[in-house]
């Protein structure tokens, strides 16, 4: 087959407008496929990650938006005394928008001595010593920094909160690249005097062997009678519940990805059928020269797969570049889903494109291989 590669490439180039349009269509389809795949993977990371299943989030009962959950900070000490609890981290959360948004900014205020212990953050620029010494210091996730063009040394205000940027970090958990971390006390005070001693949620880390559901039930039972009742869930369940509306939309987006594959299949199949119909006589000549029907079939398949994969390279490349450099994320109620590129995403896109190209070439390939030589030559 490699000996016939020039013929395949030149045949595609012969109708370059048609080929380029098909490749463009394939690129658009794979771009959307990649984008949707990235969102789906982002949601799966949030809800199915093992660490998220072994960490509990304590929220005020029947509250969903961070702005409405107000837990006494001293709950942390009480929760810390329950069996199975290893560490409790009180967190104040402030977001500029509780509704679903692509431009959500989420501040997390944590005790500075706990931040580095419970979050896997690596500073790309700036220093932790500045964060420790300045009360209004903030370290900004690389996705937010990219999106909002924030640099170390900048000072910016969102809502009531004005911070000085002392570091840009990347996190092992892609969703955290969309967060801004500050001192807990600073964020409490920034929200007004009423907020001092009040936090939005507690992250509860468990000992090995502790059963998350039992500890969650014990926490809720401890505070059932006040002063503020709690709802405790594993972090994964908390994030899934918080993003339930978005998750439904993302579920629908799955069908959009399927539609893209269908579109790709139809587009490449149409082009390949047209190419075969244009070249009935040519395929007859090739057979007369001695090419086996199976080889003709494979040549047509190669053209079909190449068009599909050519578009895939462009579409996946553009999609991954946007995901890598766009710092895109969608968030709701203080929880964000990060859109991240991955090799896995690129490979699945390429495999889908190759499969669509293969399927699209089957019927035209079979038609070309079954060409009646004498009949086709007479038609010329």
């Amino acid at each position, binding site marked *: 087959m490699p000996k*016939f590669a020039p*013929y395949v490439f030149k045949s595609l180039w*012969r109708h370059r407008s048609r080929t380029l349009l098909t490749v463009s269509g394939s690129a658009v389809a794979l771009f959307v496929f990649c984008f949707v795949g990235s969102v789906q993977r982002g949601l799966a990371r949030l809800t199915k990650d093992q660490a998220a299943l072994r960490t509990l989030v304590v929220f005020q009962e029947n509250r969903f938006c961070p702005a409405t959950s107000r837990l006494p900070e001293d709950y942390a000490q009480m929760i810390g005394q329950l069996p199975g609890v290893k560490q409790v981290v009180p967190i104040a959360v402030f977001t500029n928008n509780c509704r679903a948004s692509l431009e959500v900014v989420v501040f997390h205020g944590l005790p500075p001595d706990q931040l580095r212990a419970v979050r896997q953050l690596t500073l790309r620029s700036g220093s932790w010593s500045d964060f420790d010494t300045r009360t209004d210091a903030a370290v900004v996730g690389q996705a937010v920094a990219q999106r909002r063009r924030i640099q170390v040394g900048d000072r910016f205000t969102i809502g009531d909160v004005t911070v000085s940027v002392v570091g840009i970090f990347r996190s092992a958990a892609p969703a955290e690249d969309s967060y801004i971390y500050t001192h807990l006390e600073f964020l409490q005070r920034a929200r007004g005097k009423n907020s001092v001693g009040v936090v939005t949620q507690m992250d509860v880390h468990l000992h090995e062997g502790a059963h998350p559901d039992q500890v969650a039930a014990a926490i809720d039972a401890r505070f059932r009678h006040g002063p503020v009742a709690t709802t405790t869930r594993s972090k994964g369940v908390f994030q899934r519940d918080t993003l339930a509306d978005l998750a439904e939309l993302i579920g629908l987006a799955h069908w959009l990805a399927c539609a893209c594959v269908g579109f790709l299949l139809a587009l490449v199949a149409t082009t390949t059928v047209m190419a075969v119909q244009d070249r009935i006589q*040519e395929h007859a000549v090739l057979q007369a*020269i*001695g090419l086996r*029907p199976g080889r003709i079939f494979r040549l047509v398949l190669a053209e079909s797969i190449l068009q599909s994969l050519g578009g895939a390279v462009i579409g996946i490349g553009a999609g991954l570049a946007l995901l890598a450099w766009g710092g895109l994320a969608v968030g709701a109620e203080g929880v964000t889903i990060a859109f991240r590129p991955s090799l896995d995403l690129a490979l699945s896109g390429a495999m889908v494109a190759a499969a669509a190209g293969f399927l699209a070439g089957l019927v035209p390939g079979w038609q070309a291989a079954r060409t009646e030589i004498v009949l086709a*030559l007479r038609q010329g």
Partner: protein
Amino acid sequence: MALVEIRKLTRQFRKGGEVITPLQEVSLAIERGEFVSLMGASGSGKSTLLNAVAGIDRPTSGEIVIEGVDITRLSRGALADWRAAHIGYIFQLHNLIPVLTAYENVELPLLLLPLSAAERHKRVEIALEAVHLRDRAHHYPRQLSGGQEQRVGIARAIVAHPTIIVADEPTGDLDADTAEQILGLVQRLNAELGMTLLLVTHDPRVAALAPRQLRLERGRLIEAGGGESRAGGDRHPRSV
């Protein structure tokens, strides 16, 4: 034993409700190195016979034995392999692949044979030299005249050193001067290179170039002139 032995070859087509029989129990033997022309009116079955010998059409009954192989018994794939190794086909409309250069068109049949790139290159150069087109090797068919295209078609037909070359009205689409050049070339293939040739034409002047001339009339083969009669069937046309 003759190089080509055709025994009681019959080809029937069904057209609507009617059965057409362009070839009726035709028998023919062609010796190695022979140049045979096959004449006949339109629809007489001459192209059908040529296509059967070339292995691109299957007879309804009868045998075609070439170098001891009955090609009517070969599977579709095996027949394709056999064509690659044994047949050089010169088409009336040259039928070059438009996206390939003259060189690449001539090289096509060699890609099917177990040859090194160097050997392929050597053979293509020789074939193009034989048709005086080495200087046009990297031209595309659209950049060649009709006569040059047909010469590339001839180079493609001879490049794999086939057992037999079949030519279907090779000058049918050319002006008189160009046709004469092409026919000269075809004659040289036989006279100088000793290639076995079966040429189909409806033009008696073209047919006369061959030492052995056959005529197909109403499905029957008649020895029309030239060498000894080895055509089977009656010497005179008979209605089918």
